[in-house]
C-alpha cells in the first residue's frame, strides 16, 4: 500500500530543490535592491527618510517571518490579486530580505570611518559620487560576511513557503512522507539537502569574517 523510499522519491525531492533555490535567488536579488534603498534611507541625514526606514526594520525584525508571509499571502488578495503561492512567497521574502539586508548594510555603512565622509565632503563630492566611489565600495567589503550569513538564513526561511502551499523541498518532503510514511528517512534527506546548500555558505561567511578581522587587526 505504501511506497517505499527509493530513487524515484529521492529524485522528486531533489527536483523540488530548484524551487527552493529559485525562491531564494529571487528574494535575495530583490532584497539586495530593496536593502540598498533601506540602508541608504536609514543612514540618510533627512529624518523624513530615516524614520520610515527605522520603522520598517523594527517591524520586520520584531515579527515572525511566518506572519509576514501570511499577511502578504492574504493581503495581496485584498488588493485584487489572485492568491498565488509563487507571487506571495516571492513578494514576502523580498520584503523580508530588504528590511534585514537594509539593517545589516546600515551597520556596514556606519562602520566606514567617519573621516572618509569628511574627506569626500572636503573634496566637494556630491551625494552620488560620495556613495558610489567612496563609501559603498568600502562598506561592501565589510558586508560580504554578514550578507552571506543572511543568505543562509533566507534559504532556511524559504522552507516556510511550504505552509502557504509553495512546492519546494520541505513541501516535497511532506508529500513523499505522506506516500511512504518513512519520516525518519524523508526528513533526514531533506535536512541533508538544506545542509549541503547552507554549510558551504556558512563556512565561506566564517572565513570571510576571519579574514576581515585579521585585516582590521593589522
Amino acid at each position, binding site marked *: 500500500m505504501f511506497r517505499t523510499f527509493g530513487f524515484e522519491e529521492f529524485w522528486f525531492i531533489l527536483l523540488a530543490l530548484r524551487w527552493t533555490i529559485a525562491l531564494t535567488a529571487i528574494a535575495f536579488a530583490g532584497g539586495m535592491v530593496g536593502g540598498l534603498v533601506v540602508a541608504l534611507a536609514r543612514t540618510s541625514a533627512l529624518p523624513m527618510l530615516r524614520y520610515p526606514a527605522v520603522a520598517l526594520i523594527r*517591524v520586520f525584525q*520584531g*515579527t*515572525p*517571518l*511566518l*506572519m*509576514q508571509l*501570511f*499577511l502578504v499571502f*492574504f*493581503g495581496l*488578495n*485584498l*488588493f*485584487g490579486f489572485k*492568491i498565488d*503561492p509563487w507571487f506571495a512567497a516571492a513578494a514576502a521574502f523580498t520584503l523580508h530580505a530588504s528590511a534585514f539586508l537594509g539593517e545589516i548594510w546600515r551597520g556596514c555603512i556606519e562602520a566606514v570611518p567617519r573621516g572618509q565622509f569628511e574627506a569626500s565632503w572636503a573634496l566637494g563630492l556630491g551625494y552620488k559620487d560620495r556613495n558610489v566611489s567612496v563609501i559603498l565600495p568600502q562598506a561592501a567589503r565589510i558586508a560580504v560576511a554578514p550578507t552571506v550569513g543572511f543568505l*543562509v538564513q533566507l534559504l*532556511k*526561511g524559504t*522552507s*516556510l513557503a*511550504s*505552509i*502557504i*502551499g509553495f512546492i519546494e523541498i*520541505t513541501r516535497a*518532503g*511532506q508529500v513523499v*512522507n*505522506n506516500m511512504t510514511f*518513512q*519520516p*525518519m528517512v524523508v*526528513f*533526514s534527506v*531533506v*535536512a541533508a539537502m*538544506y*545542509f549541503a546548500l*547552507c*554549510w558551504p555558505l*556558512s563556512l565561506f561567511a566564517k572565513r570571510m569574517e576571519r579574514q576581515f578581522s585579521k585585516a582590521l587587526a593589522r
Partner: protein
Amino acid sequence: MDQGITVLCRSVIPTRRAVGVLYTFNFAPVFENFDQLLIGAVLTMQLTVGGIVFGSLIAVPVAAAKIYGAAPLRWLASAYIEAIRNTPFLIQIFFVYFALPSVGLRFDPNSAALVALSVNVGAYSAEIVRAGLLAINLGQIEAGKALGLGGFQVFRYVIFKPAIRAIYPALTSQFVYLMLTSSVVSVISATDLAAAGNNIQLNTFAAFEVYLVVTAIYFALSLFLSFIFSVFGRWAFNYPMAR
C-alpha cells in the same frame, strides 16, 4: 496537518470578492475571539521561557565541550551546532514530531514544540556562549585565584558573569528571535498564538484581519521581551567596565 493547510489556503477563496481597495476591514470576529489569542500568547511565552531555560542548559555545556573538551567531544559539539544552524527550524520540528516516534520517542504537539525549540536555540546560543568564554582573559582567572577565590567562585564571578555580560546583547536578541521562531510550531498543531490565529481564521474567514492582529501581538511581545531583558541587564551587570 496537510489537510489543515489545504483548508487554510482554500478557505479564503470563495469568501473574498475581488473588491480591490474598497475592501472593508472586519475586525469584529477577531476581537470576539480575543481570549483565544491571549491563551495562545500565554503558550507562546511559556514556550519561549522554556526554550530559554532548556536552551541555556544545552548551550553552556556544549560551548564548554567545544572549547575545553577532548577531540571526540569537540567534534560532537561542532556537529550538533552545525547541523542545527544549517537546517531550517521547520524541518527540525517535523523531525521531532514525525520522525522521532518511529524510534519510540513520542511527544504531544506542545512538548514536541518545546523540545525542538530548546534544541534549536541551544545550538545558536552555544555558539554565542563560546564567543563569550573565549573573550575571558586567562590573566583574569589567575587574578581570581590570587585573590583566594575557590574553583567554583572563580568560575562564577571571574568566568561566567563577565562572559555573560559580554554576550548579553547577542544572547537576548537570540531569545527574542526564539519567540518569533516559535510561531512555526503551529504547523504541528501546537496551540500557540499563531495556531490560535489559524483557528479563528478558519472559523471566521477574516484571514488578513486575524493575522494583522496576531502579528501586532507578536510585535508587542518582542518589544516587551527586549524591554525586560534590558532592565534585567542593567540590574545584573551594574558594575563599571574594566577599561
